[in-house]
């Protein structure tokens, strides 16, 4: 086992059994994500993206293969073992938010930090920082049901980061956002990445994927591409970026 990897999967397989008919959702994925790396997973609907990161986050069991988190074999853990590992190491943003409906936005975000052992003051400060970054300070005392889909999405991201997890897993974190709110999320992802956060994000959003160090393309439960995007103008004089617009015209 390589020590630098935060995540490693070996020949990971998931076959759902629906009414006797097996549905192979993930078919032999080998994925390694290094400390501090930002990886985007792309692919068509139904290609297994959510299934893959649910397994990595311990939210769904694997059919076969191995999952290693931060040097520890995880797929063989008991449910409670996973729960502890997850609380300590993983922040998860679901494709469909999953906020606690009966708690305020502020409490939703503070809860994971408190469960993770932070003091009330630390949890509050972290919450204030995250909600501020995501333009949600005004909504702190609201209930999730009073928020728009986009606002709930951002709260879910703040909650996932409350605990300063070793690994952030996010399923379509800009999926319900217009371009301005999407930009807040994008900036926060970039900022935490610059501070060393390891991130795996499932996304159709090319702005998010373009920001990543690496893009993994899934097709039919298998990886068909894994590599860096190609920068064009980074080394050019300023004004070169204008060419991009002309190209798109």
């Amino acid at each position: 086992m390589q020590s630098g990897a935060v995540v490693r999967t070996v020949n990971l397989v998931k076959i759902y059994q629906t009414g006797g008919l097996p549905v192979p959702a993930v078919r032999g994925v080998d994925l390694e994500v290094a400390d501090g790396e930002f990886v985007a997973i792309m692919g068509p609907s139904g290609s297994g993206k959510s299934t893959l990161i649910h397994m990595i986050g311990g939210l769904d069991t694997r059919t076969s293969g191995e999952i290693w988190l931060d040097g520890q074999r995880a797929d063989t853990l008991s449910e409670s073992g996973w729960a502890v590992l997850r609380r300590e190491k993983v922040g998860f943003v679901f494709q469909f938010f999953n906020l606690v409906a009966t708690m305020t936005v502020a409490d939703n975000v503070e809860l994971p930090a408190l469960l993770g052992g932070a003091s009330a003051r630390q949890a509050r400060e972290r919450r204030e920082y995250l909600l501020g970054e995501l333009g949600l300070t005004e909504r702190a005392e609201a209930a999730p049901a009073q928020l728009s889909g986009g606002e709930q999405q951002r709260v879910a991201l703040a909650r996932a980061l409350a605990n300063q997890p070793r690994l952030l897993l996010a399923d379509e974190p800009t999926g319900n956002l217009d371009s301005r709110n999407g930009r807040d999320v994008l900036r926060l992802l970039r900022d935490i990445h610059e501070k060393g956060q390891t991130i795996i994000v499932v996304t159709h959003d090319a702005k998010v994927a373009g920001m990543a160090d690496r893009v993994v393309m899934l097709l039919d439960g298998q990886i068909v591409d894994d590599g860096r995007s190609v920068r064009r103008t980074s080394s050019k004089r300023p004004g070169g970026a204008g060419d991009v617009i002309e190209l798109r015209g």
Partner: protein
Amino acid sequence: MRLHLLALLAKEPAHGYELKQALELTFGSAYPSPNIGQIYVTLGRLEKDGLIRAVDVEQSNRPNKKVYYLTAAGREALDAWVDEPTEGPRVRDEFFMKLILAPLTGIADRMTLINRQRRHYLGLMRDLTDLTEATDPANRPAMLLIEGAMLHLQADLDWLERCQEDLTP
């Protein structure tokens, strides 16, 4: 660029360098800075076509400069441009032609072509994101231009994904 220059001249007469500056000011870094030589060539053609006319303005200790203004025919051409619907972005895509034609000749694998193209588009998207950050948000035309480019690029990527899905039986 012909009609862009006509539109600027409809506002007020100007000389070549002022037109260059006006374009830069309006679109910021989101638009390739026009080269002054190209502007003069275009102005020359517009003049030849009777859409603009030039007057020499004397300057105290420099050579005369030409100030251009719109003619009635120029005004008509501009009105016609504004009134007609504009063509949408191209549908026949150079990459798509490669994707369809290259495998016929056995010179390329389609999965490889698509993957390479995606990486290229994502690199462009990253450049556009950086450009957004570097552009003054108060420059609305520039911001809207960049956002439009991003939306087109997203559509191209979604289409690429459709092409890739089509490869799997």
